[in-house]
């Protein structure tokens, strides 16, 4: 585990220097890094639509109408960008804000380091005492504000148990598959009932034959 931590530590020391605040006389080389990607987006929009080839081409009722809107956007965007860049350089208020932010974050970091040093190095027993003293707070923090528990109760358990007990065992295996197999059973049962007619007794066959013949004859005579 040490190696990843070392790499992260090196990064945390070095990475900040890609953007040194103006208040310290530096320049932020990463701030505008993505601008080239975003500015032309507005300008390219019609061209991208055009790339669809025949699809868009046949539709050229539309583009002339959209054209003014996009050019307007193009004009707006660089203007806004210039404005922001200009503000960053000269405005004394901006410098003050930067210095304040730097100060506050440094103080907070030092406080954190100091607190950690106190609890872990100087007085390990103080941590336990504090935990006892503020037991509810300690428990809340220890359980990460119970976010995991909340998720478990609200989502994980209902979804899992509902899927298991209701969807799978009742709906799928019971209702849907039950209907499928039920159809099979129905056919088998009714065939089983019909089977009883096939007694194999010649006399019964002869009797039903003559009854049937009489019925057919009767039907034609009565008609």
């Amino acid at each position: 585990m040490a190696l990843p931590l070392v790499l992260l530590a090196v990064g945390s020391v070095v990475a900040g220097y890609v953007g040194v605040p103006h208040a310290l006389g530096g320049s932020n080389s990463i701030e505008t890094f993505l601008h080239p990607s975003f500015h032309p987006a507005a300008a390219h929009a019609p061209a991208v639509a055009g790339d669809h080839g025949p699809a868009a081409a046949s539709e050229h009722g539309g583009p002339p109408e959209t054209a003014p809107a996009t050019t307007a956007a193009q004009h707006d965007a660089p203007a806004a960008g210039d404005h922001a860049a200009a503000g960053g350089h000269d405005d004394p208020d901006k410098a003050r804000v930067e210095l304040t932010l730097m100060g506050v974050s440094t103080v907070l970091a030092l406080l954190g380091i100091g607190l950690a040093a106190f609890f872990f190095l100087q007085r390990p027993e103080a941590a336990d005492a504090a935990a006892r003293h503020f037991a509810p707070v300690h428990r809340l923090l220890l359980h990460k504000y119970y976010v995991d528990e909340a998720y478990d109760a609200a989502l994980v358990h209902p979804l899992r148990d509902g899927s298991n007990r209701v969807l799978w065992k009742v709906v799928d295996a019971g209702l849907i598959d039950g209907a499928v197999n039920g159809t099979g059973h129905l056919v088998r049962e009714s065939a089983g009932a019909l089977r009883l007619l096939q007694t194999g007794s010649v006399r019964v066959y002869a009797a039903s034959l003559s009854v049937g013949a009489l019925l057919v004859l009767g039907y034609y005579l009565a008609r």
Partner: protein
Amino acid sequence: MSFPLLSTVVFAPLLGALLLLAIPNRQNARDGLVRGLALGISLLVFVLTLLVWRAFDGRSADFQLVERVAWIPAFGIEYHVGVDGISLWLIVLTGFLTPLALLSSWIGIEKKVKEFSFFVLALQAGMLGVFVSLDLFLFYIFWDAMLIPMYFLIGIWGYDQRIYAAIKFILYTMAGSVLMLIAIIGLAVLHAQATGQYSFNLLRLYELSIEPRTQLWFFLAFALAFAIKVPLFPFHTWLPDAHVQAPTAGSVILAGVLLKMGTYGLIRFAFPLFPDAALQVAPFLGTLAVIGIVYGALVAMVQPDMKKLVAYSSVSHMGFIVLGICAANVQGMQGAVYQMLNHGVSTGGLFLIVGMLSDRRHTRQIAEYGGLKHVMPKLVAAFLILTLSSIAMPGLNGFVGEFLTLMGAYRWRPVLAAVAATGVILSAVYMLWMFQRVNYGALTNPKNKQLPDLSPREWAAIGPTLVMAVVMGVVPNLFLAPMAPAVDRLVQRLHAQRPALARTAAHDVVGAGRVRRAGKVTAGQVRPLRVEVRPLRVEPSRAALSLEP
């Protein structure tokens, strides 16, 4: 057309299968020979399917490599085969998966090796036949013939409840097919009434104009057969049984290719033959698809058996494909076809992995495993790639297909797309959870301590799916470009202006229909949405323009 390439592709596996039967194999003395020969034949067929790809002109939407011979002239039945951008990749997929399926059964199948290899190759011939048929009668023959080898594969080489699963599979599928057969005959009769002669020629039947009521009934008959095959919720319960009971090779082919016949049928037959009815029923089918996506994922999540889990995940994934088809726009259709290939690769691969575990431990219960990465890191690495492919990780194949289908679905019905998108999250839940329970953690079960890692043969079976998962994720255009013209034409056909009888139905059903008709735009390129949106955005500038003069 000089050389009948497609017929060669279709009948080569069948000839190979017959050749296998001729080998005397008393007391399994020549199992090795039989296995090697079957593998060789399937590899040859794969090469042939690649030749189809080479010969295929990806810029054309027409059927190519067409062979057409009168067969039963009295009823206008022909031997008529051809390939277009939609069927092309399914043919290649069939060629690709069959050797892998045979490799996967090298150890797992010990009894009746010759018969087993025969049925696998016969099944392949049937599947290829379904994908190339352009005559409905021929299609139906292949469609039903295909059931027979699968029935035996499950019934003879399956697990404990194999007979139950095999009978359920064949009865369920045939029940659907019979209605389709009636509709097919009905179509031929309609053709006879319109033109004076029977025809089962798909391309001619496309041109029939059928009155809405008949269309609806015929569409429902076709759609039911295909919905069972897909399987679409709630016609899916044969699938978990069949998958769990089938041998690995059966599962791979079942998931990889057989299920695709359902969605292929919707794309090739049900939708373009009865476009008005299809568009009318599409919201309903799409809703079932979305229910299937979420429902399949939730039920998959709680399965204790890996094979059953992957089976239910198929219900979920196939839902995406049906949703894309129902959207009936270019993105949806392309996504659907692409997702058919993806699902073949990733789910086929997952069944291979489960089969390898099952070969070693003779159990597929998740609870029996755990911590496998300590003993077989290579297998676990392959498992991980396929898992990520199945949950549509960007950079792998599943992402492209799911993205396209969801985009198509969004342009059609945003609400359905939104609900379907939860399936993406749930797929991560059930797949990663299973992966975690099987492979991570401590090696708790002592029976797992001595498991060997992937053998060269297993590498040969699983490796190609891994490669394809990456290739299809990184260069999707290689696959999408040849299918584009055919998909465009299909979508145009679905939304084509049809005289009088269609008008009202289409108007009710397709939300964007109004705009399309008003603007006289042919609907091929999913333009309705753009047409709808633009006026809203440019209203002010148009007003400004009108003020100027």
